[in-house]
């Protein structure tokens, strides 16, 4: 394993750096990122959709001024898309255009050289010479078998390619994995990661987030917005409004020039927050308490 990085001096420094790129972190978040850097371990971020899991990785990359390499997971993702692949089309061409009389040994060593290697995100992060941030998004969508593929990369920061040997990282990338918790991840994977649970923020923190991300908004409006969103999250909804939707709503209200939220504003802009008609109906039922 390469040397562990020292990107941050303390958890507070992480928080300060993140704040500079408009990401408000709490104690757990800043602490996990700091420890991830110090211990050279990946962070597994779990939580409901739209609570800033992916955003955290992006913000860390932006705050430290490093490159972000992203691997979007989906069902059916395999080695060839995640680690590396031999460019067999090019290899076939090479074979067909092989000079008469060239020995097989020559051709073989030629075929499996770096020229024919297509690097995919994981290998790219390992081979990078400068510090990078690696984001593995939505790991829970991977098949259980494919999940095992990540283990070598995440614990030893190395990739074994049979034809070329083992490639070890020159620097330890800061790795973030995100999961919506749609399935239980394997124990082996969890064990190798630090765990961070990102839930919906408290009223005060969400208000801060709104004020930071939508700077033109008034104090009063931000308070109203977060109060209503929190009340909505308490209802038994199919899909609860996420933080990103709160921000969208704040921008919408700002755009149509609302100063004080009346119930008709809520009616007109509800679709920004809620994405199911049954949810909207349910929310309208309990509207009276939301606005005053």
């Amino acid at each position: 394993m390469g040397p562990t990085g020292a990107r941050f001096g303390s958890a507070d420094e992480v928080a300060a750096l993140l704040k500079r790129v408009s990401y408000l972190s709490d104690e757990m978040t800043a602490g996990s990122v700091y420890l991830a850097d110090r211990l050279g371990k990946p962070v597994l971020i779990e939580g409901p959709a739209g609570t800033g899991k992916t955003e955290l990785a992006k913000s860390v990359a932006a705050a430290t001024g490093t490159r972000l390499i992203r691997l979007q997971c989906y069902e059916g993702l395999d080695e060839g898309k995640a680690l590396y692949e031999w460019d067999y089309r090019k290899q076939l061409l090479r074979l067909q255009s092989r000079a008469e009389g060239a020995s097989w040994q020559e051709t073989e060593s030629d075929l499996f050289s770096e020229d024919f290697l297509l690097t995919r995100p994981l290998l790219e992060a390992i081979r990078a010479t400068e510090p990078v941030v690696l984001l593995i998004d939505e790991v829970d969508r991977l098949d259980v078998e494919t999940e095992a593929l990540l283990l070598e990369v995440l614990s030893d920061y190395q990739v074994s390619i049979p034809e070329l040997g083992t490639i070890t990282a020159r620097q330890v990338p800061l790795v973030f994995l995100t999961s919506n918790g749609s399935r239980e991840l394997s124990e082996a994977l969890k064990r190798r990661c630090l765990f961070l649970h990102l839930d919906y923020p408290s009223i005060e923190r969400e208000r801060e987030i709104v004020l930071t991300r939508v700077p033109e908004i008034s104090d009063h409006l931000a308070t109203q917005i977060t109060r209503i969103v929190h009340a909505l999250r308490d209802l038994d909804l199919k899909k609860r409004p996420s933080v990103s939707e709160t921000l969208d709503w704040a921008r919408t209200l700002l755009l149509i020039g609302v100063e004080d939220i009346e119930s008709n504003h809520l009616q007109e802009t509800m679709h920004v927050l809620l994405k199911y008609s049954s949810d909207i109906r349910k929310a309208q039922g309990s509207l009276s308490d939301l606005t005053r």
Partner: protein
Amino acid sequence: MLKTLAGLVAELRAVGIPVSPTEHIDAAAALRHTALEDRPAVRAALATTLVKNPDHLRAFTTVFDLYFAGRRGDLSPSSSAASTVESSSSPPEGEGMLGGMSDGELGEMLYRAIRDRDRVMMRAIAAQLVTRHSNFEPGRRVAGVYYMSRALAAANLSAILDRLSADSSDEGGAYLTQRERDERIAEFRTELQTEIRDRLVADRGPEDVARVLRAPLPEDVDFLSASGKDAAAIREALKPLARKLAARLARRRRTHRDAPLDFRATLRKSLSTGGIPVELVHRKPHPSRPDLIVLADISGSVATFAAFTLQLVFALRTEFARVRTWAFVDGIDEVTELLEHSDNVAEATYRINYGSSKVRLFGGSDYGFALRTFARDWGDEIRSTSTVLILGDARNNYLAPRDESLATVAKRARHLYWLNPEPASRWNTGDSIMDRYAQHCDAVFECRNIRQLTQFIDLLE
């Protein structure tokens, strides 16, 4: 420090949170990079390395607070563990002032602290209330609940709540929503709890208190003995579970590897590699979705269990071609429609049970009659693709078992499973005739908590 950490890990394992040696080592490494006097930072460092399941976070917080309770900031009286708590307690900030107040004045202070969400003040008042009203005696073997109820009675929170809502309807007053009011009151209750727990710890030592306060994780709570609070925790735990299970069932159906070769697609794909079939394409597997028939005993003794199981089965209904449910006590009737249109299954079961329906005639469960009626009236509904699921404790009140009806059901259905919420050791004792029915079932499962329920659903196909 390492010793303390080992103790904490042992405590976590005792509660049921799995901590592997690797995670233990990570935690130790993490502490090297953490300022040990900063408690929230230590908690964050330990939580992120030791706890890998969001459901366990709350339990972790409790254990952590408990374990380090003796080391709580110097503000709290418990830091000095002496024989008489009252006389030796180093007074918390403002106690001198609070100590001299009358109960009425203290109530006023509490009201203001809750309204303004002043946590420091709340803590001080909680300490004062416990000192004055809980009648705390060192060495006395009573549960913390006793002290808690005394302190709560003195705090008179409902009056404060009323005042807060009166203030809110008043234009000039500080406006708080219903939710915020409840939240703040809950905050104060937590302060009280912490205070009492700290004093108990100081008095008896952490190990002793931990044993008393140790609550099982939601997935381990026994269905039959679940209290109101436990039931709420179980319901919370069921919500994400249904989604997880649905995803897993769907995934397994879609990824059958032994599907036959799709020759045309393989040929087409080979065109891009000069006619050499580098990648083989398989036919998409045909997803088979079972239809599920659930017979639930909803008599008083097993009603909670039936409610939870029905709730889970209903949350999973997209994964089954069809889910139909019958409820029985000593009569039986189909309740699929009814459950379909109700938000809360537990409540619906209660309504069926005590409302006017054909389900309940005299009271005690009669499996024999219910099974015979089901086989006679609805037996044709069972198809060769059906999986029949019976939920109940097989306690037949010494009535005729009529297991030949169950045999008919078993013959028609593809699978017949029985879930019993009683511990297996108690089957066939008293009026339980589990074995008599078991001979017709494909399998009988003990299903006492969410963990076992999950294992079973996972096995359904």
